[in-house]
């Protein structure tokens, strides 16, 4: 066992670092932290990576992957986190992409994978419904075969960034009489411009609009958009969720956020001394770093297992639980660090080009909104309670 990078790995790191330095759009700055990005900003890096052939590193080589080792992938994420890069959205890259190249038809691969790689096609995930959240298998949206089309009716909700999406992957009930709720569900790709698809924004507690209700009314979708076999969608959905989870750990991003927290706590004062020198505060930051170190090695062990041919299994639930707890704790501590300046609602204060007094230090802005927003991480992608249920059943055998 050995944690040191080899000479080749160090060379790879340097290559990656200089590529990022030369190519990451400067105007995106600390984009990973910003809540107010335009859709163009969100795909800018994805498109650059697409051209370089680095947008889907974890895919098999024949579909445009890089064949990087787990260590290289780890280095890649680390280096991006150093500049706090806004990484390609997961819906195409780590969710539907792997489903399509694993279970999809040749036509689907040809048609959809290039757009996912290049970042030209924006995907969204249509799983959840008002009555089907944690209990996803109880979903009601129906797809009824009519000649060479499915006619789809139902309501999806919480569809992240669907307002910009070109395509969505949806779970629909194709056999209402199936014996178990998990059966009779199909995985269908829908062009979001198809008549009958309507997306309505939902405002969240941080003031942002990242999720939507998606209404599907007599939406006619060609049968060739069915992925894999009819009524076998649950298998693909589960496959995808395990992939989704390993992305949610967010170790590299959290490491960068800890650095940022240290910077902030170095500027804030307590009794005239930097807050970070206060033992109580320093202890909390260290606790985070310690938990993060443990999570990092756990993730590396998972990645290594994956490389050795073990697909992401129920262990990824550990990554989801700890990763999101750490992310939430980080935003909580950042809010704590800024003291009274957590309270102003910066979203509604227009400082741009103003010669008025600014409100509080720049780093305090959005600290509360980010904290509020990050409560979502223990809810989505299978809530942390559901992750614990998975570990209970699959690992503890209870």
């Amino acid at each position: 066992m050995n944690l040191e990078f080899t000479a080749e790995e160090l060379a790879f790191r340097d290559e990656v670092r200089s590529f990022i330095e030369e190519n990451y759009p400067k105007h995106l700055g600390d984009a990973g932290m910003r809540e107010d990005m335009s859709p163009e900003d969100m795909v800018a890096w994805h498109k650059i990576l697409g051209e370089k052939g680095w947008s889907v590193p974890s895919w098999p080589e024949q579909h445009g992957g890089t064949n990087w080792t787990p260590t290289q992938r780890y280095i890649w994420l680390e280096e991006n986190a150093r500049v706090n890069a806004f990484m390609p959205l997961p819906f195409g890259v780590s969710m539907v992409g792997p489903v399509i190249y694993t279970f999809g038809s040749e036509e689907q691969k040809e048609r959809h994978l290039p757009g996912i790689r290049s970042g030209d096609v924006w995907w969204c995930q249509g799983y959840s419904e008002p009555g089907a959240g944690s209990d996803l298998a109880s979903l009601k949206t129906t797809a009824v075969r009519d000649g060479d089309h499915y006619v789809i009716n139902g309501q999806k909700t919480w569809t992240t960034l669907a307002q910009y999406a070109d395509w969505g992957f949806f779970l629909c009930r194709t056999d209402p009489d199936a014996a178990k709720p998990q059966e009779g569900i199909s995985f269908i790709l829908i062009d979001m411009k198809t008549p009958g698809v309507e997306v309505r924004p939902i405002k969240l507690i941080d003031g942002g609009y990242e999720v939507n209700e998606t209404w599907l009314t007599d939406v006619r979708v060609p049968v060739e958009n069915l992925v894999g076999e009819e009524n076998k969608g649950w298998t693909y959905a589960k496959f995808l969720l395990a992939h989704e989870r390993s992305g949610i750990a967010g170790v590299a991003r959290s490491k960068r956020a800890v650095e940022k927290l240290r910077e902030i706590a170095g500027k804030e004062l307590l009794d005239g001394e930097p807050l970070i020198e206060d033992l109580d505060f320093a202890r909390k930051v260290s606790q985070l770093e310690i938990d993060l170190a443990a999570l990092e090695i756990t993730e590396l062990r998972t990645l290594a297992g994956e490389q050795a041919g073990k697909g992401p299994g129920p262990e990824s639930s550990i990554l989801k639980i700890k990763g999101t707890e750490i992310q939430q704790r980080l935003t909580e501590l950042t809010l704590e660090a800024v003291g009274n300046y957590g309270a102003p609602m910066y979203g509604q204060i227009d400082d741009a080009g103003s010669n008025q007094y600014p409100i509080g230090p720049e780093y305090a802005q959005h600290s509360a909104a980010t904290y509020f927003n990050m409560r979502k991480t223990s809810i989505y992608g299978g809530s942390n309670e559901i992750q614990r249920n998975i570990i209970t059943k699959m690992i503890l055998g209870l």
Partner: protein
Amino acid sequence: MDFNFTEEQEMVRDGLSRLVREQYDWDTRRGAVESDAGWRPEIWAQLAELGILGMPFSEEDGGFGGGAVDAMIVMEEFGKGLVVEPFLPTVVCAGGFLKHAGTDAQKEEHIGGIVDGSRVYAFAYAEPRGRYDLADLQTTAKKDGDGYVLNGHKAVVVGAPWASHLVVTARTSGEHRDRDGVSVFVVANDAKGVVRRDYPTVDGRRASEVYFENVSVPADALIGEEGGALPLVERVADEAVAALCAEACGAMKVAHAMTVDYSRQRKQFGVPIGKFQVLQHRMVDMFTEYEQSVSMTYLATLKLDAPEKERKRTASAAKVRIGQAARFVGQEAIQIHGGMGMTDELAIGSYFKRLTILNAEFGDVDHHMKRHIALA
């Protein structure tokens, strides 16, 4: 020992609770918070009419003879409705200064206006780099003839956009964080040289950055002793802490009730999610946290007249306990609501936000834990 409320106190609670129920429903509140004004002066007038604004003042000061327990009852009911009207800065803070240290003339001038609702106050004490230290003041008040000239910057002054007057802490002598040299002034909000930057806060109130640029005030703007006001400021801050704790209790109670209610309605896997033991136990823990918080709020409120050290230690203990409880209850409430908890549409998100922000007001958990240790 007696944990009962008097008949009058029960009446006040009933009246307020009806007002909150009938006029502070969720949609109406949201409309008011998002309006240009950001609050409802007509509610303020109604509170004055009901005698609420005069309740904690003695009869000789022009009030109705109540005290801290009455303020606690009011704040708890306000917490239940997430009332944004500035009772805490006006009645508890400004009222507190006047009550404890105002001259007869000052009491006559100011308390009457508080009681009848014609005046609103904001308490400008925090400074950008002072964190929660009440003595960490860079705002200065220099003697100038009979009066003083104020210069400085106060941070996140809650209620300032609505206020007719500001109560301001400033240094008349001494260094940056000295205990000596702290004085308190009352200044008209429209006085020459008062420059404000107003903004909404994430929990639905309004606040300002307030800049004092050579603001001249007369001698009788000084409340209490020149240079020796820190103990007074600390006392009023402890009273504010107790009031905030009460508000938090009200908000926690409702957040908990909403969560239990939601867990009864919301079905997943064919059963109400409240049937999952893991959620049941967490709602029990929320409830326990709430009950402990009520106890600490009583304790802090009842010790406000205790000897200084005991008062401070109890106030800090309460703020620590409530800060922790408020965070726990708020986070769990959102989690148990699932995706719905994240929406702006549901009231629970606003309870969560208020429970988050009040942790920092008048000192957060770490600050009060340190003070509690230092006073051991």
